[in-house]
C-alpha cells in the first residue's frame, strides 16, 4: 500500500480484486491451480491473472489449448482426485462448448456416485454485454447454471464481492461458478488486504428502503442504485438487494425485504423470459403472498440475441431508466 493511502480506505478495481483473491487462494491451498486459455503468459485477456505465472510458475498457472470441453473435464477429473482447480472460461458464452462436461458430469457426478466423489472446483467466467462484442461474447447465462442441481452460482457486482466470492468458492467442496462482469473490471471498491469470504447463499442489502424492493443481479445492482436515487427524488424510498448468490438463493433476505416494502421489482441483464428473475418472483409469491401489494415487476433483456450495433445494444441492455419506468408503472405514478 502506498504511503498516501495508508489511512484511507484501500480501494481496488474489480480486476485487481480478482487477482488478489486468486493469488491468496493459491498461497493458501497447495493443490489449487489455475487452468484456462491464455491465463499464463498473457495473464488473461481481461488482465486478471497478470503476474501470477511469474509468482507461481507454470505448474500452477496452466495455459491450455482452446478446448473448453477438455478444460472443464480437466477441472472435474482433477477435483475428483485431490486437486482444487480454478478453471477459467474466458467468456461465459463459451460454456456452450462444454455444457455436457458442466451439466452432465460436473453437476451430477457426486449424486450419481451416491456421494462417492467430491468436486472442489471453481469456475471463473465473464458475462455481460456493453462492449459491442455481439451475440456470442456478451451473454448472461447464470439461469442455465442455476438450473443444474449440483453446482453453485455466484455473481459479484463489485470488487469486494469478487475477491470474497473467489475465496469462498475455492474453499467450498462443491463446483462453484463465479460469474463476473466484463463492464465492471475498472470499478473500484474498498477491498481489505487480508483473506475474507463473502458467504455463499447470502444476499446483501446495498441500500435500505421502506417503500419498494429492487432485487438486482451482477452489474444491474449499480443500475438499481442509480434508479433508487432517481426514485428517491420522486418520493419513493427504495431498498436495493444485491442477490449475489444465485444458487443457492437467499430467499430469507428477499422475503424479509418484501415484508417491509410490499412491492418489488427484479432486474437482471439476462433475457427476461426464463431468466432467474422469474424464480425470485415465484419464490416470493409462494412465501410472502400475503405481504404483496402489487404484482412483482421484471426487467431484463428483450427476447433476442445480444445485438452488435451500438445503437441496438444500448436499447438492449436494461438500465436505471427502465427500472425507474417499471417501478413507476407498479406504483401508478
Amino acid at each position, binding site marked *: 500500500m502506498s504511503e498516501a493511502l495508508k489511512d484511507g480506505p484501500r480501494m481496488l478495481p474489480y480486476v485487481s480484486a480478482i487477482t488478489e483473491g486468486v493469488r491468496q487462494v493459491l498461497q493458501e491451498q497447495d493443490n489449487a491451480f489455475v487452468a484456462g*486459455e*491464455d491465463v499464463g*503468459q*498473457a*495473464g488473461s*485477456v481481461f*488482465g486478471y491473472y497478470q503476474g501470477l505465472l511469474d509468482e507461481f510458475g507454470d505448474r500452477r498457472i496452466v*495455459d*491450455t*489449448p*482452446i*478446448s*473448453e*470441453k*477438455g478444460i472443464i473435464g480437466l477441472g472435474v477429473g482433477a477435483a475428483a482426485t485431490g486437486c482444487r482447480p480454478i478453471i477459467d472460461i474466458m467468456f461465459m*458464452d*463459451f460454456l*456452450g*462448448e462444454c455444457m455436457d462436461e458442466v451439466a452432465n458430469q460436473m453437476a451430477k457426478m457426486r449424486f450419481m456416485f451416491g456421494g462417492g466423489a467430491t468436486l472442489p472446483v471453481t469456475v471463473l467466467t465473464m458475462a455481460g454485454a456493453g*462492449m*459491442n*462484442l*455481439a*451475440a*456470442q*461474447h456478451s451473454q448472461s447465462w447464470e439461469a442455465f447454471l442455476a438450473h443444474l442441481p449440483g453446482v453453485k452460482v455466484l455473481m459479484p457486482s463489485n470488487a469486494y464481492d469478487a475477491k470474497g466470492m473467489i475465496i469462498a468458492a475455492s474453499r467450498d467442496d462443491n463446483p462453484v461458478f463465479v460469474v463476473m462482469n466484463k463492464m465492471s473490471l475498472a470499478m473500484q471498491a474498498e477491498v481489505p488486504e487480508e483473506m475474507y469470504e463473502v458467504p455463499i447463499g447470502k444476499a446483501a442489502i446495498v441500500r435500505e428502503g421502506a417503500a419498494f424492493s429492487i432485487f438486482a443481479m451482477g452489474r444491474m445492482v449499480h443500475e438499481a442504485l442509480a434508479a433508487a436515487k432517481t426514485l428517491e427524488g420522486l418520493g419513493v424510498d427504495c431498498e436495493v438487494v444485491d442477490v449475489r448468490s444465485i444458487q443457492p438463493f437467499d430467499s430469507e433476505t428477499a422475503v424479509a425485504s418484501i415484508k417491509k416494502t410490499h412491492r418489488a421489482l427484479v432486474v437482471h441483464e439476462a433475457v427476461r423470459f426464463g431468466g432467474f428473475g422469474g424464480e425470485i418472483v415465484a419464490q416470493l409469491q409462494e412465501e410472502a403472498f400475503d405481504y404483496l401489494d402489487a404484482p412483482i415487476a421484471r426487467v431484463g433483456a*428483450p*427476447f*433476442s*440475441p445480444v*445485438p*452488435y*450495433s*451500438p*445503437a*441496438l445494444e444500448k*436499447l*438492449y441492455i436494461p438500465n436505471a431508466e427502465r427500472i425507474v419506468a417499471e417501478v413507476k408503472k407498479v406504483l401508478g405514478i
Partner: protein
Amino acid sequence: MAKNITNKTLIDLHSCMVRIRRFEEEAGKLMEDGKIPGALHLYVGQEAVAAGVMAHLSNKDQITSTHRGHGHVIAKGGQFAPMFAELYGKSTGYCKGKGGSMHISNMALGILGANGIVGGGPPIAMGAAFSNKFRKTKQVAVTFFGDGASNEGSFHEAANMAALYQLPCVFVCENNGFGEYTRQTNHQAVTDVADRAAGYGMPGVVVDGMDVMAVYEAAEAAIKRARAGDGPTLLECKTYRYYDHVGVRGMGLTYRTDEEVDAWKQRDAIHSFEALLLKQGVLTAKKIENVYARANDEIKEGVAFAESSPFPTTEDLLEDVYFVGAAS
C-alpha cells in the same frame, strides 16, 4: 509457376490480396480512431490463403469463416460498402448491423458466417457439404479455421464425419502460429495440423501460406477432389498475422519479437507476388499502382456509405429472431 494459369487469374489473385490488405489496414485505422466499435481481428499477412482458395469457388460454393473473417468475405465476393456498414453497426450492413465483424455473412455469396466461437465453422461446413451431397449438387463447402481452432472437439467431429460420409468438404487450417497469445508449440504437440488428417482417413497437405500460387494449386487439387465426390482434404497453410490478435497493436503483450514479425514480412505474400508478376511482365508498376488506387477508391466510397447510413432502430431489435411468414 504452374503452366495453365491465365494472366487474368494471376491479376485477380493479386488484386484480391491487395483489396483485402487495404480494407484491413483501413478497418484497423477506423477502429483506432474510435469509429468502429467492438473487436476487430484483422487478416493482414494471411491474404494469400483467402485469395488462393477462393479463386476456385463460385458464389454457389459455401464457406465458413472465423473471427478473423474479413479476408474470406472479400475473397468470396464481399463488397466494401456493406462490409464497412456492418462494422459501423449500420442497418445497411451485411447483417443489418446485428452481427458486426465477428459475424459477417451473406448467403447469396455462400458465406455461412464469420464466427465468434473458435471452431464454430467446421461442423457447419460439414453440414453444408452433407447437404450438397444429399441434394446431388456439385457445390463444395470450405471451412477456414486456425491452428488454435484445431484443438476444439468440433473440428475433430466434423473431420471424422466429413471423411466417413465422403463429403465435398475442404478443411483449410490457417496456421498463423498462435491462438491469441499462445504459441502453437504451447497449445499442441504436433507441428503440422495436417498430420491430424490421417486419423480421420483423409489426405493432409501442408503448403506455404505466404505463397499465393502454392495455396492456389493445393486448393485446386483439394476442391477438385471434393467436387468429384472423392471426399474431404485437410489443407494446412503456414502463415502469419502481422497485427496483434485483436486490433492493430492489441493489448501490448510481449509474446513475439519484432524480429519474428519482420522476418515473416520479408516473405510477404503480396510483395513477393508483385515481384514475380513484374518479372514475368504480367503486371507493370503502373498497373500495380492502379490496383491500389482502385482499392482506395472502394474504401473511400465504402466508408462514406457506412458513415451516411442509418443505425438500426428499436423495431429491428426483435426482428430476425424467428422466421415469420409462410413456410417454404
